[in-house]
């Protein structure tokens, strides 16, 4: 069975500073990786995903994540955060490519301070 570890439960950072949210997974087979974002009082929205091909994937709002198979990691980064990035971020792994077997991490609360 797969599992996902998000090492940081809370990440405070000042506006315009860079940020990295860490995600490690364990699985004995090939995986597909996702980052979801949850804004206050809302459901989850897909931020970006790695399925195959280039190990660096990007979102439309400046986030990127790199799949590192040797380190079994999929860390999320942004070079300069905004107040509006304040949200909870969830890393998720899928075995076999279908969302049917999606496993989530415990989440990281990113708080951007003015």
């Amino acid at each position: 069975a797969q599992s996902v570890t998000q090492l940081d439960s809370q990440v405070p950072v000042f506006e315009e500073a860079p940020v990295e949210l860490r995600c490690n997974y364990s699985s004995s087979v090939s995986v597909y990786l996702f980052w979801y974002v949850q804004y206050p009082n809302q459901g989850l929205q897909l931020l970006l995903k790695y399925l195959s091909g280039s190990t660096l994937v990007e979102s439309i709002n400046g986030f990127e994540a790199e799949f590192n198979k040797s380190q079994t990691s999929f860390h999320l980064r942004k070079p300069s955060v905004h107040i509006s990035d304040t949200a909870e971020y969830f890393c998720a792994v899928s075995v076999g490519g279908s969302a049917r077997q999606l496993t989530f991490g415990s989440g990281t609360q990113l708080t951007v301070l003015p």
Partner: protein
Amino acid sequence: DVKVTQSSRYLVKRTGEKVFLECVQDMDHENMFWYRQDPGLGLRLIYFSYDVKMKEKGDIPEGYSVSREKKERFSLILESASTNQTSMYLCASSSQALNTEAFFGQGTRLTVV
């Protein structure tokens, strides 16, 4: 625009009551899911369904049941609500096709008193 709609944003129920949480999706997805979200625990899968009238237990099915009589609707049932079922409940759907992500509803915050 894809949509997963949960019938209630907030619910308050008494211990021992039977509770129904409803979820409807308009994307003709085969898969539907119910998750529970608690601080520090992330999302935990309660049940999922991959077809009408089909269901499988997730990681924490105890105290819950589900019903899927129509493809677009997936109901979560708490037969006898207890205070430890106070939580945020999230419904999601996805296509059977490979490489697709799950789409989530807005969530229902259930409080059992």
